């Protein structure tokens, strides 16, 4: 049973892979009906699936594929010309085959779907007639992908009795046998036993065994043939059959299985397009070929990616520590070695990350493949002539993104077909050819992949879009007037918007484009629309290559840091406070020829304004999908590679936060959810420019001990000398051993200091740095800082003044002098 399961799984994987290619081949076939190469490929799919399914006892599937094979075989031998009607039937049968395979995958059996209608139709077409097909008028109105309804549309079949159907099947079986024999002789494989479609029910066990044996052989031969094709992908797929359109034995002594054939392919056709990723088919060990690919469970890749994430965090941390060490032990010999190690580790980590990312990459062709078929169906359904041009289908991107991108693209392309491309008459009247073109392009641009959908249809009319939006109450008239053309195009992404005058089954329900925007935003992507009335529309989706590890811009606001996905950052600008204007309670600025609305990151994330913000601010211009906003931050820290971690179940769904990352210093930094931030920005009221009114705490001094002075010095002796000098005053004294400690004491706010005595040379943070740090706080602006140091040079004094020191005492000093300076600065006795 397990073995059976295994075979079944292999079968399903193979079958789905084959089918993926099939749709595209079929649509191509319609335009080039005499391309034998294509026909052969399609025929082989049906054949392979038939062979395997009969072995696995999926009778319904076998039955269907058998008839498909039959029809295709005729086509391939030139007995049948493939036109649109035949193609409709073939496509229908393939849809049915897919449905059956899905059923087998989900339920393990293939019953429950009615294939008889389709089979009968296949036979009718195969027998040369389109006449009995009432549905198949020159321009079919309904191409029926819904397979269950088939029997209703097939009057010919419904008039048949069961017995007749049986007879028909019998007849076809016989025909099939003859054909199979003919084919075998054509392939110069006379040793192969006759291929019959056996009735398993009537077979003895031994017969079943023999049948299995036979099928296995057949499969092996096929596999070997495939191997050969694979190794010479540009060569004709089945050279023998190709060169012989009629069913006679080929004069060439080549066979499908003989490896010799590989050396001398009958190069009678132009090279076909190289087949896309079909790793499965390479290397069946029997032929002695080395396996070039292996299948890997996605979970393992995900796990690998997580581990790499941890490694990247470690690397960031190492770099940070290296920087610190460098600063501290400048000029020491071991530094160079450390530097080397760090840079090697960082390099290898980056390479490793890229390598693992690559293993998760899939060509976008996987998604694009389904569009030719979709366009074909749509063009028949909408009665428009539409051509699809695909470029860059080899462009690769992360598996998770490939999975997400399909739906949005379907919506956009449907939309282009339905609303963009005009009907033939209109196109001709507009001076265009009657065939509309939709181009689908994919290419890399830096760390992004760009997918472009261009149609040459009627284009978007900004005024019409505005008018429509006002009618539907999506925007007000005032908003409409203020809108640029680009912003107006963006209206199509608003929920509840639909431009089609009439709602069709294809699009126009007003949900599609809204979904597109949400999905693209989920991927941190951007949408850019360009359109010209009468000329067409171009939609550009810009999507990051991967999701787990991203480049981020780190920004600071007050004492907090936030990471903004770099994918959404368009640019950063340094501005003056004066550059900010207020329009209707909203802050805006002029950025070149655009007006950009602004929001302060502190207002969004409720950051308390403790520091005095300087005259300058930085604006990070964020772009997402089609909207833009300027985010004001205090500082720009830089660009860093970050690993996205979830905040966990307890804190999930916090508005504006997409997750967290761990920085090089071990701290946690939150990642901004740009999409949510843009939403929030709409409701945040601006506080830009309004200084936070710091309540002045003027402590009433009643006694000497109400005065508080901090002594910052790394030397115990120096601290004691100062303490001794000041003790007679009776003021409260607090000691700190270096700048960092002093700053922490200040921040705790246990004491309200009236003055600070600061040594200049200290470990961790020196006096100058401490002074400038302290002066960043609004409430310490007027705190007297007194330098006490042995550095007496003029330059030192100047630096002291620059960093905000008010007095400069050089060691040694007399206790009285120190006392007087402190007294003066804390205005001692004045209040008493």
């Amino acid at each position, binding site marked *: 049973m397990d073995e059976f399961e295994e075979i079944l799984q292999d079968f399903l994987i193979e079958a789905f892979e084959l089918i993926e290619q099939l749709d595209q081949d079929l649509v191509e076939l319609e335009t080039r009906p005499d391309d034998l190469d294509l026909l052969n490929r399609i025929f082989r799919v049906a054949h392979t699936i038939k062979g395997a399914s009969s072995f696995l006892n999926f009778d319904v599937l076998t039955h269907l594929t058998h008839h498909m094979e039959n029809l295709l075989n005729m086509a391939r031998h030139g007995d049948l010309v493939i036109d649109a009607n035949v193609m409709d039937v073939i496509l229908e049968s393939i849809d049915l085959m897919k449905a059956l395979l899905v059923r087998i995958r989900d339920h393990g059996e293939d019953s429950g779907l009615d294939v008889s209608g389709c089979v009968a139709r296949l036979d009718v077409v195969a027998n040369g007639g389109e006449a009995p097909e009432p549905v198949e008028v020159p321009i079919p109105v309904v191409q029926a992908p819904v397979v269950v309804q088939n029997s209703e549309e097939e009057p010919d079949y419904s008039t048949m009795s069961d017995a007749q159907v049986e007879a028909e099947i019998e007849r076809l079986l016989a025909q099939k046998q003859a054909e199979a024999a003919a084919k075998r002789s054509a392939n110069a494989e006379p040793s192969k036993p006759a291929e019959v479609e056996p009735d398993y029910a009537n077979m003895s066990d031994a017969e079943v065994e023999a049948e299995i044996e036979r099928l296995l052989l057949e499969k092996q031969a096929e596999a070997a043939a495939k191997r050969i094709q694979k190794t010479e992908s540009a060569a004709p797929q089945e050279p023998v059959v190709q060169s012989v359109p009629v069913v006679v034995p080929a004069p060439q002594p080549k066979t499908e299985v003989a490896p010799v054939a590989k050396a001398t392919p009958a190069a009678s056709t132009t090279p076909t397009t190289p087949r896309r990723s079909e790793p499965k088919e390479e290397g069946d060990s029997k032929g002695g070929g080395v396996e070039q690919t292996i299948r890997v469970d996605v979970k393992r890749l995900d796990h690998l990616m997580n581990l790499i994430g941890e490694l990247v965090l470690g690397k960031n941390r190492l770099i940070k520590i290296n920087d610190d060490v460098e600063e501290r032990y400048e000029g020491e010999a071991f530094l160079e070695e450390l530097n080397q190690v760090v840079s090697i580790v960082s390099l290898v980590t980056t390479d490793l990350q890229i390598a693992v990312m690559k293993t998760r990459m899939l060509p976008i062709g996987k998604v694009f493949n389904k569009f030719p078929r979709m366009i074909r169906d749509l063009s028949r359904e909408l009665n428009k002539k539409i051509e699809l041009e695909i470029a860059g289908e080899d462009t690769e991107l992360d598996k998770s993104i490939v999975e997400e991108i399909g739906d949005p693209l379907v919506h956009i392309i449907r939309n282009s077909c339905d609303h963009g491309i005009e009907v033939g008459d209109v196109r001709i009247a507009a001076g265009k050819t009657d065939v509309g073109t939709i181009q689908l392009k994919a290419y890399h641009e830096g760390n992004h992949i760009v997918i472009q959908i261009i149609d040459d249809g009627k284009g978007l009319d900004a005024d019409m879009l505005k008018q429509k939006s006002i009618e539907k109450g999506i925007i007000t008239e005032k908003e409409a007037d203020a809108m640029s053309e680009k912003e107006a195009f963006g209206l199509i992404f608003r929920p509840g918007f639909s431009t089609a005058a009439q709602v069709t089954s294809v699009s126009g329900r007003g949900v599609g484009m809204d979904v597109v925007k949400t999905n693209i935003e989920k991927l941190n992507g951007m949408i850019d629309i360009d359109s010209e009335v009468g000329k067409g529309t171009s939609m550009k989706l810009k999507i990051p290559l991967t999701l787990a590890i991203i480049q981020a811009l780190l920004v600071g606001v007050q004492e907090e840091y936030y990471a903004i996905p770099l994918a959404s950052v368009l640019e950063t600008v340094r501005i003056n406070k004066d550059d900010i204007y207020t329009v209707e309670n909203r802050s805006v600025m002029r950025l070149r020829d655009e007006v950009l609305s602004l929001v302060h990151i502190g207002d*969004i994330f409720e950051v308390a304004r403790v520091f005095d913000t300087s005259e300058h601010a930085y604006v990070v211009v964020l772009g997402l999908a089609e909207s833009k906003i300027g985010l004001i931050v205090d500082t720009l820290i830089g660009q860093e590679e970050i690993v996205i971690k979830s*905040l966990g179940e307890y*804190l999930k769904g916090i508005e504006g936060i997409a997750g967290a990352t*761990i920085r090089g210093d071990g*701290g*946690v930094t*939150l990642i901004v959810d740009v999409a949510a931030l843009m939403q929030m920005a709409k409701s945040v009221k601006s506080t830009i420019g309004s200084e936070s009114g710091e309540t002045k705490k003027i402590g009433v001094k009643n006694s000497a001990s109400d005065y508080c002075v901090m002594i910052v010095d790394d030397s115990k002796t120096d601290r004691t000398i100062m303490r001794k000098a000041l003790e007679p005053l009776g003021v409260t004294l607090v000691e700190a051993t270096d700048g960092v400690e002093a700053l922490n004491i200040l921040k705790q706010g246990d004491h309200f200091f009236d003055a600070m005595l600061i040594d200049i040379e200290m470990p961790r943070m020196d006096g100058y740095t401490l002074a400038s740090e302290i002066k960043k706080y609004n409430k310490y602006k007027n705190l007297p800082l007194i330098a006490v140091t042995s550095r007496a040079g003029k330059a030192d004094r100047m630096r002291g003044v620059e960093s905000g020191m008010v007095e400069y005492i050089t060691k040694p000093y007399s206790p009285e002098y120190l006392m007087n300076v402190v007294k003066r600065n804390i205005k001692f006795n004045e209040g008493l």
Partner: protein
Amino acid sequence: MSEKLQQIINKQNKALVGDNQKVDEVIQLVGFIVGEEEFSIPILSIQEIIKPIGWTRVPQIPSYILGVFNLRGSVIPLIDLRARFGLPLQKHTDETRFIVMKNGDDVAGFVIDRLTEAIRMPKRDIGPAPDTISESETMIDGVGKQADRIVTILKVHKLLERNF
């Protein structure tokens, strides 16, 4: 021979049963102080106890959640139990600890004032939570009585439950 064997088996069984009863009757708790009161939680729901480390504020959440911190690569929420219980805030002291509690996949750190001790308490000494508190709302699992004090046992799953 068989009689002797039987005796030994009986004896062993007895010993086993006795052990089981003992294990069943005693639960191990870790006691800690928040504000004026002593609380405790089952030792098995504690992942680890660490000294305070830096954390990052997270916007738009109730004030009793201080933010998130990094516990060896995992981002974990940090909840101040003083604030959670509506007590006035206090500065962290040398005795302040973060207790990292887990319940299934839910993990969070809790700030407590100080640890007291590991308590082994017989089950019979544990009474139900006071009736005045509704069963579904209360964070109290029970009240343990000891010779000189009472200890409130908290429901870990309730503490780890998101309630905003």
